[in-house]
């Protein structure tokens, strides 16, 4: 195998370092959209008025039934047509965020359904308002299953960011492809990209485990 260390250090790593920032930024921004929009979708679907429930359910089905890559292309080429021009990275973050929000909505729903019925009944018997019931009784108890599942989606989003290279977002995969085609050397750049994803995934998984244990300890005693 022909591996050039000076090329790796002088050309690949500096450019990849910058691209890694874009990847991490896109991951967290998309994750933020996913967890907030997911909560809104779940609340509208399960507790909203009837005329909202139906379109929301259809929207969720639509997003789940189409590939993420198609959605990225769709937003990238269709939004400018309706005079919304966003930087590619913003479009990519939107697509990733929306795609994962419907998955997060399902996580929330499952977490809330896992709270025993007796807890709802006790809240009713104590005459708590719907808001208090959710805030103080249901949501704290649904967090232990929800938090690790959301953590897994954070890692999933991270691993989905290379799809943004299809719309020329300067994230790590795109940069490694560019370096490859500029210098006719792919080995170093693509290997570094792979190592980057491996290391970051392992670090993120460890972080998720720490948070998961913290939540379990502080809520379940």
């Amino acid at each position, binding site marked *: 195998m022909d591996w050039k260390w000076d090329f790796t250090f002088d050309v690949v790593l500096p450019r990849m370092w910058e691209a890694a920032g874009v990847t991490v930024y896109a991951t967290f921004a998309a994750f933020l959209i996913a967890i907030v929009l997911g909560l809104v979708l779940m609340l509208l679907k399960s507790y909203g008025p009837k005329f909202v429930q139906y379109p929301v359910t259809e929207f969720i089905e639509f997003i789940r039934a189409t590939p993420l890559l198609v959605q990225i292309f769709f937003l990238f080429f269709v939004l400018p047509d309706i005079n919304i021009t966003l930087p590619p990275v913003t479009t990519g973050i939107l697509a990733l965020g929306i795609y994962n929000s419907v998955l997060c909505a399902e996580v929330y729903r499952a977490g809330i359904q896992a709270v*025993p019925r*007796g*807890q709802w*009944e*006790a809240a*009713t*018997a*104590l*005459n*708590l*308002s719907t808001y*208090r019931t959710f805030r*103080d*009784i249901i949501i*704290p*108890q649904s967090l232990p299953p929800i938090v690790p599942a959301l953590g897994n989606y954070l890692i999933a989003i991270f691993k989905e960011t290379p799809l943004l290279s299809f719309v020329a977002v300067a994230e790590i995969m795109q940069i490694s492809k560019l370096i490859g085609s500029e210098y006719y050397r792919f080995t170093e750049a693509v290997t570094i990209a792979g190592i980057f994803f491996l290391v970051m995934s392992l670090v993120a998984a460890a972080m998720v485990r720490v948070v998961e244990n913290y939540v379990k300890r502080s*809520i*379940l*005693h």
Partner: protein
Amino acid sequence: MSDVKIRFDDVVKRYGPLVVLDHLNFQVADGEIVSIIGPSGSGKTTVLRVLMTLEEIQDGVIYVAGEPLNKMESGGRLVPASKAHVRRLRSRIGMVFQNFNLFPHMTALQNCIESPVYTNGLSKEEAIKASMELLDMVGLADKRDHYPSQLSGGQQQRVAIARTLAMRPEILLFDEPTSALDPEMVGEVLNVIRQLATAHSYTMLMVTHQMGFAREVSDRVCFFDKGKIVEQNVPAELFDRPQNERLQKFLSSVKEAH
């Protein structure tokens, strides 16, 4: 009659084709202590659950202190009750569950003050003071900072009783409060309920399998079967001279089990 606290007026409760309460008519006077006995599936727990608004009824009207619970008056007619109307009346009723249903992520004291603070609008200090008195009454003041998982079944149920009393209800519903307990813990819970029955003026409605206890504390015992009250009387009469054949059978099978 102003002293009627609870009135079921031709109440029907169905689950699909299954009739659980079959045109039930039933009254409880202010301060009266009524026990409900009967075979499983007779609808006795459902009486408490519809009164606590945990389940909807299909027909009839339930009155609490003279006011309709599942309906409200509007222009001289009864219309389906609004959320606000239900919440206002529900504040007069407290329920103790078979499985305690304590909030597992809150301490004993936090369980007790949740409703007074957020529903009755008490300040936190007032709520803590009142709740500590109640925890003291059920003999668990020293467990105020324990979580439910750190308490025995009997202790959990006593906290649940304190939690219910903390919202200052006038009507107390007990749904088989000792059925989920180990035998050696039944006594401590019954002692608390006995104290409530003798030293306070609560209107109490209790579904129980503890025949001896029902006989001891109740003003009246109702025997339910197939969604109806088949026989009701003062405890001594009902237990010693049961008239109805099904009641006789039920009582003798309960006796055999003991």
